[in-house]
């Protein structure tokens, strides 16, 4: 079989991979801010919940999290009478986002704490409320600091999407496996997939770089 004939099914899988990456990275970013700021909260309940989330999802394997959400959660739901069956895409996106969000939360916390305390004092002296201080002063300075690490996490997340093939989601890795089973042409298939992941990683890196430049554009002014 010609290698070009692999491209159609692999592209179909690539599209699934792209969707998984985009959805889970955005959702993961949301979790990162939610729980990263939650960990800095003075409310012990919010703080405790955030710490627990971060530690649990950083301290367990993504594969197990994925299987747990897809296979274990529906059974638990059945036992307590709630329908907790999710389609593979939802389960995949949720597991990836929860996992990447836990790592991202630590990045958010670190960057927020790294904003000099003098900025906090200047904002207080100008009578900012704590909420406006966070949104107007702290976060705009902290976000550019987060971006390089977020870039790494996004690429990491792209590569992690390959795991969702194990809950029979038709992503790129899943299609590759199918083709290989059918043709036994491991070298060609996996070389193709290798390059396709690499190409996507380059695109993700480029997007994150642009984003980084955008949120930190004030730093480059006049330079």
């Amino acid at each position, binding site marked *: 079989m010609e290698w070009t004939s692999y491209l159609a099914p692999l592209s179909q899988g690539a599209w699934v991979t792209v969707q998984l990456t985009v959805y889970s990275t955005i959702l993961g970013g949301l979790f990162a801010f939610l729980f990263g700021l939650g960990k800095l909260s003075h409310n012990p309940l919010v703080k405790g919940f955030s710490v627990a989330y971060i530690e649990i999802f950083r301290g367990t394997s993504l594969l197990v999290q994925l299987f747990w959400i897809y296979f274990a959660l529906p059974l638990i739901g059945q036992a307590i009478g709630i329908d907790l069956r999710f389609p593979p895409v939802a389960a995949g996106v949720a597991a990836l986002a929860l996992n990447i969000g836990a790592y991202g939360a630590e990045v958010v916390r670190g960057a927020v704490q790294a904003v000099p305390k003098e900025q906090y*004092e*200047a904002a*207080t*002296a100008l009578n900012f*409320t704590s909420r406006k201080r966070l949104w107007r*002063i702290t976060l705009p300075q902290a976000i550019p600091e987060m971006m390089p690490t977020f870039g790494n996490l996004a690429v990491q997340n792209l590569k992690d999407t390959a795991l969702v093939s194990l809950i029979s989601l038709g992503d790129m890795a899943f299609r590759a496996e199918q083709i290989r089973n059918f043709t036994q042409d491991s070298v060609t298939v996996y070389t193709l997939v290798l390059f396709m992941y690499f190409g996507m990683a380059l695109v993700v890196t480029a997007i994150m770089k642009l984003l980084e430049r955008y949120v930190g554009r004030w730093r480059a002014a006049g330079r």
Partner: protein
Amino acid sequence: MNDANPDRDTHNGRDVNKGRDPIIKFDKVVKRFGDHVVLDELDFEVKRGEKVTIIGPSGSGKSTVLRILMTLEEINDGVVYVGGQPLWHQWRREQLIPASEQHLRQMRSQLGMVFQQFNLFPHMTVLRNLTEAPVQVGGVAKAEARKRGMELLEMVGLADQANKYPHQLSGGQQQRVGIARALAMRPKIMLFDEPTSALDPELVGEVLNVIRTLADEHDLTMLLVTHEMHFARQVSDRICFFDKGRIKEQGTPEEIFTAPKEERTRAFLKAVLDPDD
């Protein structure tokens, strides 16, 4: 508040006894950092419109006085009054209880602070540094805040820098923006915490000139911590010499600089005025 005082006692051409009631009053204020006592039952008053300079060796609690007033530093004991109202406390059933955040926000609006390290917001343009708080906190309309911001920049001689970012300015220019930013909130009391200490010597003058202009405003109360003795002598109604968390000596600039009574004051002034001896 009675601003018409018959006993006119003037210094530097200004009326010293502008109001009978102090706008700032420290009543036996204690501030500790761990075991270290920074303010030791400090009693201290500033009258409305008065320009007071605090001098003293480092660690004597000078900056702490300003930071307590700006609510950046809590007190351990005593009461601080601003405009007759307790700053770190509030009244409830004739009792003083610790101030709520709401009370602190209300009190803070009377004060503005200029920091040693400027502390401008690096992610905002110069003009935005001046308009952000009035718009976000003071509820001023954007156009109005911009107009007032430009006026203030005009005053500090930086109208042409309005759209630059702080890192594009020199230290002296940044500090002038810092002063304008504090003024944008229309405070009654301005606190200057060593405003020229972080500047290259040739940039000190431009900042002092701006502060000098402000000192001519009768209604503005000014509290200044500085090592610029010559300048302090020119603009102050009163000089307070701090040592070990207390006011060791205070008086008019003439009294302090030409005839200090305390040995400690003499030694300090000699050390800062003729460092080569």
